[in-house]
């Protein structure tokens, strides 16, 4: 088993929480994990990505080789396209539909959707709306994560445990909301 995952978004959107939960779920499943993060200057409203590698064999490189990523999980639609050169022939793109517009020349969003839909394997999901319906607008990243679970190949329960471990200190209510969002994301791709 090997899954090389690019997590994409804009600084502050919460890709590191997603990374931490997948990392927890993978370790709890007895897998090896390596995860390269971006800190510093690029975090200020710029594009950010994290390389997350999980495998049943020891992992060598901290960076995913280009053309080898099994998954691009993106909290922002345009950002999902920035890492296409990383994607393998069999790879999936799972992206949120809500654009994050902090630049003057943000392209036509419908064109972005069309490109994502034209990819061999892609899933577009309106995570912000699903999160809002759950009265938990800040959990959009957990909806995206939930939608990615079938493609990651780790049991749902492991992710629940991951959420517990990451948000446990911040209270039961937050844990519950995030697990609901996770479930809603999973259900959205199942249907």
């Amino acid at each position, binding site marked *: 088993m090997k899954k090389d995952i690019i997590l994409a978004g*804009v*600084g502050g959107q919460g890709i590191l929480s997603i990374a931490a939960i997948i*990392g927890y779920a993978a*370790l709890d499943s007895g897998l*090896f*994990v*390596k*995860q*390269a*993060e*971006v*800190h*510093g*200057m*690029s*975090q*200020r*409203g*710029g*594009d950010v990505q994290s390389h997350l590698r999980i495998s049943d064999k*020891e*992992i*060598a*490189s*901290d*960076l*995913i*080789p*280009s*053309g*080898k*990523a099994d998954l691009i999980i993106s909290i922002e639609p*345009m*950002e999902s*396209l*920035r890492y*296409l*050169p*990383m*994607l*393998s*022939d069999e*790879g999936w793109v799972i992206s949120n539909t809500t654009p994050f517009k*902090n*630049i003057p*020349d*943000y*392209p*036509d969003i419908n*064109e*972005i959707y069309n*490109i994502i839909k034209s*990819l061999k394997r892609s899933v577009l999901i309106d995570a912000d709306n699903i999160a809002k319906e759950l009265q938990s607008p800040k959990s959009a990243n957990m909806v995206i994560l939930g939608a990615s679970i079938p493609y990651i190949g780790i049991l749902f329960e492991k992710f629940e445990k991951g959420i517990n471990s990451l948000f446990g200190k911040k209270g039961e209510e937050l844990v519950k909301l995030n697990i609901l969002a996770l479930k809603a994301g999973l259900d959205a791709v199942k249907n």
Partner: protein
Amino acid sequence: MQKLVLLGDEAIAQGAIDAGLSGIYAYPGTPSTEITEYVQRSKKANELGIHSQWSANEKTAMEAAIGMSYAGKRAMVCMKHVGLNVAADPFINSAITGANGGLIIVSADDPSMHSSQNEQDSRFLGKFAMLPILEPSNQQEAYDMVHYGFDLSEKLKVPVLMRITTRMAHSRSVIERNTEVRQQNKINIPEDSHQFILLPAIARKRYKKLLQDQVIFEKESADSGFNKYFDGKDKSIGIITSGIAYNYVMENYPERIIPYPLLKITQYPLPERMILKMYEECSELIVIEEGYPLIEENLKGFLELGIKIKGRLDGTLPRDGELNPNIVGIALGFKDQKGPEIPEIVAQRPPALCNGCPHIDSFEALNEAMSKYSAGRVFSDIGCYTLSALPPLKAIYSCVDMGASITMAKGASDAGLIPSVGVIGDSTFTHSGITGLLDCVNEKTPVTIIILDNSTTGMTGGQPSAATGKIENICKGLGVEEEHIRIIKPLKNKTEENIRIINEELEYNGVSVIIPTRECVQTLNKRMREKLKK
């Protein structure tokens, strides 16, 4: 044994705590910041009374660490690669004084300049100082090598440099931790009371000893077990690789079986016998190292005698920028792989100042005030506010090194470019701006210095600033005239007033300091969130 998931930086910090550290000294700088932050957050480190407060800059950090080593205790000092330039004076001299308690300097290089103004390779400064260098390639090695590094430092009686790079610092993996925390050293000043007095007569002796000891350092490199020689059947080429680059080599062989002999360098000086063995049994060599071609240059020499050596110098690998598995794969003769191209429609998303950032209001007022002069008069510095160079603000014309805004404005003013303006952040000012401002005061140079006071070290994640609450008094103490120290509030509704004040000071024929004071929105939000929790 305990398993932990840690960043490379955190593994170093945990390693130091477990190896009997007494104090860590640092100034924040990407990608090194998380080492010190980890010690600051560690309950164990607090229980043990390990010093972990930020220093004013890398030089003061390095000197304090030398002082702790002098007193017999184990000290670590951490910085980004360009920070080692700031600390270069005490660093180079510490090789001559030697260490007493174990002393490790961690320098985190940033190849490809993700968050830096150059991509210099700290190994060159380590070699220049003639000190042993450790270069771990994964988190476990980083953890283990800190313990070894302290032992090595105490055994050889010299400081040890640990060099890491961005991908080592900011990559997370599982480490096995030794839960037996070693006791800290007791106070024990050096036996030789002259050791730390670098008067010429003493320094000459100490320097000769450092030169003689190089053989011992090299023997340690060959024998410690961290440098590893792996045999391979195919001798048509031998691979020499180091640090994080080793991982990229291995990535290209999914079964982890390399057909060629491979030498993994993790400790310097270079282990001569291992390199000679490879030289003798292979037809050519390829050197794969992250950063500058240090190993390659050492092997190749000026005359290029002997077998062919491939690497960054002959174009087998790019001369600049960080490596990755693909670049290394191509150099090893594999076909490159790539997914679809990035669609043209994808726009650049450069980093930007945050919404509500006080710097935006400061620069908008400054831009307006400067609009009546010709362009190119605003010198700036290292921090979030460097982003004001980009559109829409396009407010500044320089960013060279910590503190250079003030001194460059002075030089330009001396040249006759009046008014000249220096824009510097509060933490950068106390890091390296104070002495430059003193130069201005001593000559009554016509400059306008703007010290952006947001009460934090913003760019690296909001560490406390050594300047908070002190800037006005520091300026007064340096001799800036009180009526030309102007404190303003960078807010939209104060813009008119702020422009008027900046204009008045631009016209003053002497040193003016304007201090726009408003808290960073990031630290403000964080404070508010924590308050709500309570």
